């Protein structure tokens, strides 16, 4: 059955025709061309597909597309400002080594964003708990956790890091 749903996608009212058996990840990647969310397992076990729905981080691979009707969806593509200014978390991941192969990165950043929106002053334990569903094989998580901490407490950021300007204008 085909049906139409309306939702807010990265700040923009969106109306699409979908099939009942689509999941949100499929809708985003295959139908809306938003390939930032990745499929690492399709089973809720890796977090690469994480997006934010009505403020909550969810695994889009397990989320029925039908269920976003009337909701707000934020994907990695919608995180930077309209003028391209990177979100503080994006900047921090870039400059603190939170990114290696980058496959986990969009999901990781969105999990961190959902955490900070709910709890702007998380402890290290809170951060680890919030990111536990986002597997990363490259970094050992250390610099990812530091990337989030640097946003929480600006002064603890890596002051030696050279943030390159292109980073901000992209």
């Amino acid at each position: 059955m085909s049906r139409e749903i309306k939702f807010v996608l990265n700040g923009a009212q969106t109306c699409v025709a979908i099939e009942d058996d689509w999941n949100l990840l499929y809708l985003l990647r295959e139908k809306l061309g938003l390939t930032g969310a990745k499929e690492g397992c399709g089973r809720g076990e890796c977090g690469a597909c994480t997006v934010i729905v009505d403020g909550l981080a969810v695994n889009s691979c397990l989320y029925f597309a039908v269920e976003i009707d009337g909701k707000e969806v934020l994907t990695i593509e919608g995180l930077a400002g309209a003028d391209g200014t990177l979100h503080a978390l994006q900047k921090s991941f870039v400059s603190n080594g939170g990114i290696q192969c980058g496959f986990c990165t969009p999901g990781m950043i969105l999990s961190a964003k959902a955490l900070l929106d709910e709890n702007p002053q998380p402890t290290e334990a809170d951060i680890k708990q919030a990111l536990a569903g986002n597997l990363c094989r490259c970094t050992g998580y250390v610099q990812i956790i530091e990337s989030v901490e640097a946003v929480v407490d600006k002064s603890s950021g890596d002051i030696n890091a050279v943030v390159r300007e292109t980073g901000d204008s992209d």
Partner: protein
Amino acid sequence: MIDDQERNGKKEIMEEFTVIGKRISKVDAVDKATGRALYIQDLKLPGMLYGRILYSKYPHAHIIRVGTEKAKALPGVITVLTGEDIPPVRLGFYKDNPLLKAGKVRSYRDEVAAVAATDPEIAREAISLIDVTYEALPAIFDPEEALKPEAPLVHEEHKTNLLKMPWSLHYGDVEAAKLDAVFNVSERFSTTWVTHCCMGTSGAIADFDHSNNLTVYTNTQIPSLAQKDFQETLKILGVKDKRVRVIKPCIGGGFGSKLDTYAYEHMAILLAWYARRPVKILFEREEEFIATSPRQPTVTYISMGCDKEGRLLYRDMSMVLDNGAYTSWGATTPSVMMMPITSLYRVPNVRYSAKCVYTNNTYSQAMRGYGNPQATFAIESAIDMLAEAAGIDRVEFRRINSNQPGDVTPQGLRITSCGLPECIEAVSKDLEFGRSRENGVGVGLASLIHVGGGARIYKSDGCGTIIKMDDYGKVDVFTGASDMGQGSDTIIAQIVAEELGVQVDDVHVFHQDTDICPWDVGAHASRTTFVAGNSALGAAKKIRLRLLAMASKATGVDEDKLVLRDRAFFVEGKPVLPIAKLLRGSHFTPRGEMMMADNFYDPPNENMGKDFRGNMSATYSFGTHGVRVKVDEATGKVEILDYIAAHDVGRAINPLLLDGQVHGGVLMGVGYALTEQVIMENGRNMNPDFRDYKVLTAMDAIHSKAVVIETIDDQGPFGAKGIGEPGCVPTAPAIANAIYDAIGVRIKDLPITPEKVLAAIKKKNGTVSCGIDAFTQKEQACE
């Protein structure tokens, strides 16, 4: 800027670099942080079909019939292939792996048929419609059993399950040394399958143009060698003299998994060839677990002895490796194991032999460390045992036997820069080894040696670079290197920027396309920083010389008075000519010049000779890891309290990325030590998902302390050596040693699960039975 001469000797002076040694963020990080980076998952070509593979239902069986009628009849199915339909494409350097099996399957992972359809769901359904009739054969899963004469043969034509590989060496006289040794240990260690778990699954797209030139988009670490493999497949298809172009999208993790070409890549080529449309094959996670090659399991027998003072006299090792049903680079890991076996610590007499054995298990391949983690687990565990036997402190024992600059090891490895003594000191100071500790807490350490200046496993160990500059002073670097996330693009950009006096952002590193990029043997053996770095540095030097000559002509100032920095030429601290202006001038002029240079760098290392002697790498990396653990003696659980990883990296070109390599390597090593295992039951992968294959999570993360020892290697680009793999090499033995220190039990088989620890504790306390074994239904001894 310093030249080679200054670099020699004068290690102490602070060179003034503008980008080398700085914590510079990765050049591709912004694309990745914004979701713009494109992986194979994200690519689609017009008219593209989706391919899928049918795997065997048996670990060993005759194929009686493959019924494809129903699959072919399914609307949307374009091509169905079986082993009978295609010419004999064979994979792997041993060529024992037919792309599609006909007649016989030898493991659950065997490819029996493949389809291409207009939609992934249709392809999936088509696969389920293929009927295969098998006749099961007796199978063999234990490599030691497989060596027995009565064992079923995996490859009848091979006549034995033992691969014909020459892995055997003997330097000095081990038997004589055994007589001289005062203290001896002898032990058996084993390691099991672990797998890369790249977060991005494997995939490839094959596309022929009208004249049958082939483009393959694939996640490879070896674009140039892949090009050759694909050419061979084309030849077998009867396609000659055509171009093969390999394009690498962003890679979602490598760790050695992409050092060979695989069935899915060749299958995509065949499907595209028969369908006359582009075909994409993309693995799902379960398939990634089942149909990619893990690190090979080993059984190791080691004996080692020392004299009264604790000096090592001999090391005698033999190994059995489970090769699985086919041969890929897993079978050649003994060539790298030889390095730690002959050369980790000074040991004059060494003997080693390894048997690679066919079984009906999955076939194995390279994974971060390439044999080194398995060998080092046995060596470093045994070192602790020997130190104890000799009554010498473990740290002291390692000091006594540490490699030193200038050593030539029995295998002929020439140790040049060597920070091992400093690494051992750093770890022992930090973890306070002699101090008494609370119950259940222990410390352990283990060291490593690894190739740090390339590894000549092929005739060439080379890498090419082309550099070109444009009118605006921007630099394009075309490198043979492959960035899989480890950051080689950034390192190369830094090296070039430093040499040319520009910023990292002025440099664009291009590695994605064999049509554009020069040749390279591949991203293995932690060789990229060293080899590709030197290659880029050489090219940049050529450009620099030409720029200086041109600038001198343009300004009338002597070359040696011109300083190239901050995108301009300076004379006595004042900018006199921007590079961009100079370049424009050279372009927009009659008989102008183009600013471009190429360089091929092949390091001064040697292929191993017949007796495996030879200086395989231009320099070697060293490191020592130390760990403090707490063992819960009631549950057997091991908790890591502190971790310190000291590495001799030559020079840290980018400490930010270096830390990342170390942290990532360490956690992977901890998984290898404690939680990760591909559970194989009679050849079948029992845990092909992240629920049961225990990759560690953020909550398990360890804040390891990364200590960098800079020995400024003479040969390395700006003194750097390789560091990609070492992070995960000594982790498991360091942890095993710490557990022994904590509770007095030694676990000799990886992974060190709580079950094994608890069983060992019980055994130590005199309990013998740990219940009934589910698989054998027999009483199970503890341990």
